[in-house]
Structures are given as C-alpha cells and as structure tokens.
C-alpha cells in the first residue's frame, strides 16, 4: 500500500507492506539506521522515535498508522548543517554516552520531555525515560545529561545547529 508521511521535516511517499513495521521502513526503505532494534517487543526503547512529537516504539508501529503524520528520528535532531542539538552536546559533555546503542532513543525521549517541560525535576526525567533501557551507564550520567540540556536550552543555547531549540 502507498503511504505518505513527513519524516524529519521532509515529505515521504513509499510503498509498504500492510504489516510492515515503521522501524523496518526507516532502516531499510529510507536508510535511516540510527533507530535501533533492541528487542522488537516494545520493552527496551532503543527504537524510540517521535510521532507528532510524542515518543513511541517504532517496532510496535504499523505502517498504516503514520499516514499523514510527522515522525522524527535521531537523524533529524542535529541541524541540517550538522550542528549538534543542545541535548546532543550536553550528553557528550556529561559522559551520558557509552556504547551509544540506547542513545538515539534516549535523546528523542529527552527532546520530547524538554519540549513539554523545560525544567523537569529528577522524578519527571526518570518517568520520561522509564521506557529507555541502558546497560552501560547505570543512568546517572544520563540524568546529568538531561539536566544539563535543560539548563542550556533554558538559557537560550541553541547548540551548534544555529536553530532555536525547543
């Protein structure tokens, strides 16, 4: 079936099998391999993308559900010129990244959080990221990274991408 949707700000049209998962459309059809498969069952969050601004598991999203909707993947977070988003900068500066496999999902869940709640409490950060598992970091520095991103974005920092963040 033919579907059309917006991906990282660009209009996309493609043919998809009715039972195609969006994670596969992204990784195979669109070559966007930044969205990762960690479990295929919606239990780990590695495949988190934003659907109309809200985090969802791309492994549980059927192709028909994104018709005429907007999705954002990790590839759409940095600026078009490659400049990093404040969240990406903050994660690097606080040591929130180790193996990097959970990182795209973490960044997108963080982006959705900070766009809705610019100065979240720790408990709110934990709730927002409760669907993103990480085995490397122990999460401490990820919380630091989110807090740092929140500080920078509230201070008007736009990262190195030249666009106004949040």
């Amino acid at each position, binding site marked *: 079936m033919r579907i059309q949707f917006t991906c990282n700000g660009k209009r996309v049209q493609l043919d998809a099998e009715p039972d195609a998962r969006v994670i596969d459309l992204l*990784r195979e059809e669109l*070559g*966007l*391999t*930044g*969205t*990762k*498969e*960690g*479990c*295929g*069952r919606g*239990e*780990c969050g*590695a495949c988190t993308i934003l659907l109309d601004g809200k985090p969802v598991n791309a492994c549980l999203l059927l192709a028909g559900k994104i018709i005429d909707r907007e999705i954002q*993947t*990790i*590839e759409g*977070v*940095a600026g078009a010129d490659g400049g*990093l988003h404040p969240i*990406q900068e903050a*994660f*690097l*500066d*606080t*040591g929130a*990244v*180790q*193996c*990097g*496999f*959970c*990182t*795209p999902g973490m*960044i997108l869940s963080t982006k959705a959080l900070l766009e809705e709640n610019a100065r979240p*409490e*720790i*408990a709110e*950060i*934990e*709730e927002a*990221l*409760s*669907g*993103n*598992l*990480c*085995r*490397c*970091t*122990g*999460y*401490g*520095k*990820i*919380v*630091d990274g989110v807090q740092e991103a929140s500080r920078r974005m509230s201070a008007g920092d736009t990262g190195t991408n030249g666009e106004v963040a949040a």
Partner: protein
Amino acid sequence: MSTIGKQVRKVDGVELVTGRAKFAGDYRFPGMVYGSVKRAGVPAGRVSEIDIEKAQQIHGVLRVLTAKDIPGPNLIGVLPPFDQPLLAADEVRYAGESVALVIAETAEVARRAVEAISLTIEPIEPILTMDGALAPDARKIHENGNITLSKKLIKGDVEAAFREAEVIVEGTYETSFQDHGYLEPETVCAVPGRRFTLYASCQSPFHIRGHVAANLGVPASSVKVVQACTGGSFGGKDDVATEIGSLACIAAQQLNRPVMIAHERKESILGSNLRHAARIEIKTGAMKDGTLVARSVRILLDGGAYASESPFVTMKTLIHAAGPYVIENVEVQSTSVFTNKTYCGAFRGFGVPQVTFASESQIDELAKKLKMDRLEIRRLNGLKAGVANATGQIYEQSVGLLETIERIAERGAAQGTTAPGSGQTTEPRPESPEPADRGRYLYGTGYASVAQGISNGAEGVDVTGASVQMSQDGSVLVGIGLTELGQGSRTVWAQIASEVLGVALETVSVRLVDTDAVHDSGPTVASRSTTVGGMAVYKAATEVKQSLLSMAGLMFETEPENIELRDGFAILKMDDSARIPIPTVATAAYWTGFPLMNLAFSKAPDANFDDATHQGDIYIAYNYGTHRMDVRVDRMTGEVTVLSHQAAHDVGRVINPLGLEGQVDGASLMGFGLAHMEKIRYADGIIQNPNFADYALPSIKDRIPTETIAVEDPNPTGPFGAKGAGEPPVAASAAVFANAIADAVGVRFTKLPITREDIVEALKGGNRG
C-alpha cells in the same frame, strides 16, 4: 598534564549521538541476505532427523545448512580441545543450541522458515543441577565427564589454623545465572570476496578470525574481521560472535552473497553465554581481636553445556575467594561443572562477584560475632604494599585498599542524603506520598571490600600491540587490537597518545579495529584495556616521540633530552619561549628520515605459579575497592530503595574522570541487578523469561545513587600509573547490597538475587536465610 585526568568528551561520541555510527546491523551490501538459527528446544537429546523440506519450499528461502555443511571442524571454544559445535550434529546439550541455519532473502522469511523446520530429537534425561552432574553414576555430558576443571589453591595449613582459631563462621552461599543484557543483540555481517570480510559486534576479533578461518578451511590471513561499533558486550560477545560469525561466513561462501545474522532478544538470552551460577561453601577462622587466620572455600560453578571460559572463571574464583585480606592459611577448591543448560562464559567480574558476595557476607558475620565494627575488621586485615596476598604475591606499590576504606569511613561520617546521579549532596528526592511510617520501613547500612586482579593473569599470554602514527600535519592515528565497547577505552588511548606527544586530543584518531591493520592483542577482557593496552599505546607513542625529539634536537642544535613536547610545540626545557610547532618538526622528521610510525608491545609479566597450589605471581596489578550502601526496606512489600551508595576504588591514576565514573556507575548497577533484580528462571531446562519484560533489567527508575570516589595509588606497570576499573564495582556492589539488606532486615540472606519476595518471607519468619 594536558589531557590525563581531565574531563574530555569521548573521541567517538559525535557519531553516537547523531545515530551515524555503524553497528553490525547497520551495514547494507548489495544482494545481502539474512540468516536465522533453528534451536534444539530440548535440553538434552540425540538428533535423529532434521526435516528441512518444508522450510526449503518457502518462497525466499535460499539455503538451509546443517552440521554436514560445515567445511571445517565444526568446533569452537576458548581453550583447546574445543567442544562446542557451530551446528549440533548428533547430540544437543542445551535447549538453545543451534541445529540448523536458514538463509533467506529477508530476516522475516528466515524466521518463518526456522519455524517450519521439524526436529526429531530423542530426549535424554537432562542433567539440570550441579549435584546431578557430580553424582557418581551421572551420565556424561561430555566424553571426559561432567567436570570442566577442578583446581586448588593452598597456602599455609588451614587445618592447623582452624584449630587455633578462636572464632569460626561457616556458611553456604549461592548466586544465580545472569544475562548480559546489552541493548544491542549479537549481530554479524559476512561479505564474501577474494578475501572474506566479517563485520561483527564483538570483543575478540582475532579469536573470531582464527575460528572462522578454521571452520571455512582457509588460512587466517585470508579472513578480515572488522569490529563494528559494538553496543555493549561485558564478556558476552566472545563465543557468540565466533559462533554466528563463522556460520555467516560459511553461508556467505556457499551462496557467494553477503549474509547478516542478527539475534533477536530471545535468542540473545537463551542462546548465548550467561554468568556462571555458583554454590560456595565458605568457612573463616579468626582470633578474638578480629585477625583472620584461616579460610577454606569450596566453590561449585554451573557452567552449562559447553566449556567456554569455565576453566578461566574457575581459576579466577580460586584466587579471589580469600578477598582483599591478609590470611596466612587459605585453601580453596573450585570446580566448574557441565549441565544441560545454556553455557556460561565471560561476564564482567568473571567469578569475582560470586565469591565476593560469599566472602564479604562472611566478614560481616564474623564482625557480628566478634561485636566488631565492620570497617574496622576490614581495616585490620586489609592487604597492604609489601604483604603477601592469597597467592603469595607481593606488590611493593599500588595497594590502595586501606585508603578506600578510609575514604568510605570519612563519607560515612559526613553522610547526607545525596541526589542520585550527581554525586553531590543536594535536597533529598521528593518522596511520593506514603501513609504514615508507623514502622513501615527498615533501614540498614552495608560495607564491602574487593580486590580484583587486572588483566589476564593466569589465563595465558597477556600481550597487546599498539601502533601510533604521526602525520606531517602533526595529527596522530592510534591503532590497537583491543576493542572499544562503550567503556571509553578509545578515548583513554587517545588521551595517552595526546599526552605523550604533546598534541591536542582533537587531533588524535583511533582507528577501527580491523584484523588486517592492528596487532592481535587478545580479547578485550579482564579490565586490561587501560593497563596493558594503554601501556602499549604509551610505548608506541614514546617511540614516535623519540623521533620528534631527535629531529627537534637537530633543529635546536641540542640534545633531545633538553626538549619536551607540550601544547602542540617542541619546547626547549630551559627556555620556554624557544618553541617549534610539532607539525613543522614532524614534516622535517619525515624529510630527514626519522620513523613516524611505531608498533610497540606491552606484555604483562608471565604468571608464574605452582599448578597444584596456585601460589606464585599472577596479576600485573589489582584494583581495590570499598563500597558503602544505605537502604530502606518496605516491610510490607519488600521494596528496596537505595538511599545512598559510595564506591571508592584505587584505580592507580584517573585518566578520564567522566569515563571512570560512568564505568563505576554501570558496573555498580549491574552488581545491584545480580544481587536484587535479575534472575534467569529455568523450568525443566528451558528458560522461562527470555525477554526484557520478565527478566528485570534495571530501568532508570531502578538506578542507584552511586558516587564514585577515586583513590590514586599509582601503579608502576600502567600508563601514567593507571589500573583498570571496569569490573571490580560489580562484585563490590552486589556484596554491599547483600550486607545492607542483612543489616536492615536482621536476617542473613545467602542466595542472590535477594528479591522482594525473599525479604517479605524472611520478615514473616519464613525459612529464608
């Protein structure tokens, strides 16, 4: 120091935060096809038929391979003789064992075809317990019996010492199997050609190369293994990467098409190695003043169906069962055993978490019996420089255990509630509205100390080779055969090269690990990347530095000793203003004919010990640590909140503070998982919870507020004095949790994980503990 000890970004961080990094599953090649494995489904049996006909008829299926299609020996393993088939031929020994490989146009078709294969396996009565495996009339799982390895450590005379001891405590402790739980499941991609290339999520690329070549029946030099960006390993991607890597290459050779094999999460849990479960009988004797005089330990390790790393884990438990203490009389027997369950292998900690739990629980029991302060008894008996440890090895330097105890004692005195993750004392976390306390909660504090040997020790030759190459523009490329797995090693190596050569960190690159281009450095295990790996980088960089100093010497018309490299310049030591930019020196060195690339080796001293008693010199260094944990336990639900956690470790020298904290945080949460949350559940030899819903990998809401306290007692054998730190916090964290819970609940728990169920039972006066 310019970069050593400084807060720096991971050198490979940008590609990770942008999603551009290529993990093994992200590679795409024209004509690429997908493989999926059919697994035994029964824990033990004889294979009489593998019916692949229906599978072959499914549209999109290209080939179904079984054991007879393996050109080489169809065997992998760690220590020869290898005992583990790539695809089972006549016998299956665990339910997750691979029996056939389907190759199809898509992963989905491959999986459907796997379902369509029907196996006829005559079940054999499985051996599912260690006692069952050791029974005198037990069936032999392997030709040589059910014991993988049994070894002893003997120091002094424990019999006599126990007779002299004034206080004795005894106990039996058990730990469960644990899954690695890395977010990226095992994945490989094999590309055929004049030479084979295998992209793999792995930590031992040369080990894979050797096995792939053997099983393909080709020379090793005709195979190239490239380590893809790896999404966590922790010891889990040794054997499995070799297994699926070999299978993918064999399939790629037969079809002449690239083949990707990507495990699903379920396969990752039941088909790949786990942490050994253990049963540890431990007895410690002391004098009334708390001096430890005797310890005897019998360790049984459940290694599952194949040998894998069991011999090495066995040996490591021998060495570490005495803990970080001076005990004159020690006897340990450690035995690893085969059972018809998923095979066990390397997992961060490698036997030390299991014995540390037993040992540290017993130290607390002793302290209780002697009415002695729990830090004091550790302080009294703690290892020091110049004093022999359990294997009789003496270190003149870098034995920082006592300092870790002091730092923990200090923090305890200044204890406030810390906000998790920040390591700073701030406002307490807001509590969720709870009914009035009314004695609802129990509070407890625990301590635990650990010593963990760094690098391979008795496990064989311990060499790494690193290359450092400087370009004419002064930028540097480091190559080393050890793998970055997220632990930040690439950054540490870059920092070392940057510091030695006096160039900015931003100009140092660390190349991908590609067996063509780096030296075989053995597996990336045992926390050796910083110590042994780092030393190789240090030496290689130093050689290149010599070329630059020699060249600068000619340019300044002075001896090389009078020059130093710093801040991007060659600088005359006696006149800071006399400086030449390093790129200028490098270009001149090239034109003059000084070598700008060097390959250097770092070799840990050979372990030199008596095989019967395990006495001798074994490890290049030890990392020492002491943890403290405060817990709150809900009496009614058994829920545990970790209120604070301090982890003090002697790391020799901190090279990358953020990296070190990240390692201690991650390792501590892994130990917490082992101690409290994670349990592989078996029923009749089949794992019941091979998914992240029912196997409780900790989420962000389960994190513990670890605060890293770095102690620096420089290690003469490590770069800038550094020692590895990746593993020891796992052991200490698991042990400290058990001790904190025992303190809170007033009951000694002798089995890990200590679950909420166990706590509630114990509080009811049930038969736990």
